[in-house]
């Protein structure tokens, strides 16, 4: 496991609020980026390592958020219990859906996940008695973590940063584990993986459930942080944006996914100054990055850097004991 990079990243995440405790951009936008990172890292396990496209991931995000929202406001459940309930619901649904959906391939799979996402969104909008309808639910009580109530932007930054680091750590562990290797085998060639004796269906199901759990977890945190949820945050556009984050950062790279999430979140905030030109620039940037760095920002820049360093005579020797690297799947090193 690439520990050096992870610790470096963690140090940066901890350092930022200490240097800029009152900066809106760092604390509030940073927290938002952190949540997106958790979502992207979870989605990356599905898209990057298992090679399954999902255009409905926002649905699981929404499930976690609404579970927390509904159970704490209408039934008075404690926050942590509601969070667990959200995880349970999302995980169960993912497990039930996995078998039939994951039989599909490519664009058909994309469509099926898209359809699932739309159905969940429609229910969130229409089932007004439960979900508060299009105007959502407000007044969600603050999250209580065994005595400590999380209140204020700085505290939320801390909680989300910790959750994000946990998610990245889990993902890195998973990728390097037996399950991770099985997944990459599946991504490379499902048939070959089956021939090797890997139960591909169960591997794919498991990663689907895990990525759903990541999303639901992020959803619950989101609900308490905002004290408000509405269906607008869980629609198709959000699902597409999540996939964009994963691909932008670099498929099959945990840090890439986190990178893409943070980059895109910052970009959206930064572009706001352009007002009416925001959409135009946003689209142009997306196209430009994908055209010139088709492997994604993180992976692409990493490669460029490594090539540059090697040309200058620096850089590491190729690690001969790298883990299984199947065709077409990158196994990137630590962040540059």
């Amino acid at each position: 496991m690439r520990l050096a990079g992870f610790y470096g990243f963690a140090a940066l995440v901890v350092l930022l609020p200490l240097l800029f405790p009152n900066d809106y951009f760092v604390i509030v936008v940073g927290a938002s980026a952190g949540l997106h990172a958790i979502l992207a890292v979870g989605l990356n396990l599905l898209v990057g390592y298992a090679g399954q496209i999902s255009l409905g991931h926002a649905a699981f995000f929404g499930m976690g958020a609404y579970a927390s929202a509904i159970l704490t406001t209408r039934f008075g459940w404690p926050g942590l219990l509601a969070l667990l309930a959200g995880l349970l619901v999302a995980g169960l649904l993912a497990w039930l859906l996995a078998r039939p959906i994951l039989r599909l391939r490519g664009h058909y799979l994309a469509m099926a996940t898209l359809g699932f996402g739309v159905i969940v969104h429609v229910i969130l909008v229409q089932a007004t008695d439960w979900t508060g309808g299009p105007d959502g639910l407000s007044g969600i009580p603050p999250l209580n973590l065994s005595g400590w109530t999380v209140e204020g932007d700085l505290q939320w930054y801390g909680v989300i940063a910790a959750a994000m680091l946990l998610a990245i750590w889990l993902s890195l562990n998973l990728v390097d584990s037996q399950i991770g290797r099985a997944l990459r085998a599946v991504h490379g060639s499902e048939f070959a993986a089956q021939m090797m004796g890997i139960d591909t269906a169960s591997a794919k199901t498991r990663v689907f459930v895990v990525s759903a759990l990541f999303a639901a977890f992020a959803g619950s945190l989101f609900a308490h942080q905002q004290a408000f949820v509405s269906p607008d945050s869980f629609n198709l556009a959000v699902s597409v944006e999540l996939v964009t984050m994963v691909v932008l950062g670099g498929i099959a790279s945990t840090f890439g996914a986190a990178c893409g999430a943070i980059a895109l979140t910052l970009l959206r905030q930064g572009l706001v100054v352009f007002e009416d030109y925001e959409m135009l620039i946003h689209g142009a940037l997306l196209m430009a990055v994908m055209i010139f760095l088709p492997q994604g920002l993180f992976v692409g820049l990493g490669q460029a850097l490594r090539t540059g360093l090697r040309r200058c005579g620096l850089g590491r020797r190729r690690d001969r004991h790298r883990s299984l690297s199947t065709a077409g799947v990158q196994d990137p090193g630590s962040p540059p």
Partner: protein
Amino acid sequence: MRSGWWRSMSAAALLLWGGLQVASAMEPIRIGAFLTLTGPSASLGDPELKTLRSYIADLNAKGGVIGRTIELHDCDTGGNAQQAIACVKRLIEQDRVDLLIGGSTTGDTMAVIPAVEQARIPLISLAGGIEIIDPVKHWVFKTPHTDRMAVAKIYANLRKRGLTKVALITGDGGFDQSGRAQLHQLAPQYGIAIVADETYGNQDADMTAQLARIKASNAQAIINFGFGQAPAVVTRDAKQLGITLPLYQSHGVVSQSFIEQAGAAAEGVRLPAAALVVAEQLPDANPQKPVLLAYKRRYESQYGPVSTFGGHAYDGLMIAVAAIRRAGDVDKAKLRDEIERTSGLIGVAGVFEMTPEDHVGLNADAFRMVEIHNGSWRLLP
């Protein structure tokens, strides 16, 4: 020598103190506006921002308010409630505004209320939902009529025409749904029976299926509580199906673009509207008339056709400015108290009389029933 030293010292101290006072008095008044400038509700935020900019420029040109210039900080929520929360946080924490005007939609407004209450900053909302001020929230006020008033106006007009069975058709937006809730809630009070209750998606291109069902019911009138392009589609589809029942719209369509898009089908459609659109038809003795005409003239000379949503922004700004003048400074708690004491302020939406229990200060008289006739608005008696 010593007395001379003391004299110069005290003179210096006095100058310093005086200078500080002047410096703080020179601090601009910062107003934060979070509006929907893009997205499906952009037709709300756009005239609102233009109105704010125009009148703030005017006030600054005349020397500002309490001797200080007004600085407007605006932020686009895109109609996304989460973005509204981010906007408000930025306005409060980074831009350090003294007062908030916005959101353009009920959804945006409700989403930011926790943050506003935590920051203890007054908020004047430009949205219509009754839940914004009912139950009353200490720091939250609003300027447009509530959707409950709109529904009351529609039902009163129906009773006058002897129609009691209505069919509802609403969209999936927040405005639509809270209007629908009010329609259900007030129906028994006016003796109205709801015999059909259809919904559509705000992006839908065709509502003939829902209208066919309404046609087959025994409804005597149709109420479409919607916003955006959908009500125009509903109106045209109703004509296409040959439905001759009276069609009522909400104040969400008080705009020239609705008349243009609905075309000939809009003839005879009735809706509650702020008096702004029929300002010329008001009797001269009406105290609102001069204010309305002045606003209309100024907006139209600068930007084009006037919109009632811009009028709400005008009201919000005027209430805020009057409160600042009465308070003498921009201490947030003092400002809030003065806003609550707004009385007799003639605005575009009506005459405002706020109380601790009533944070909108309008009554249903401020709404007028109008009818679309020959492509323009006609005030109904």
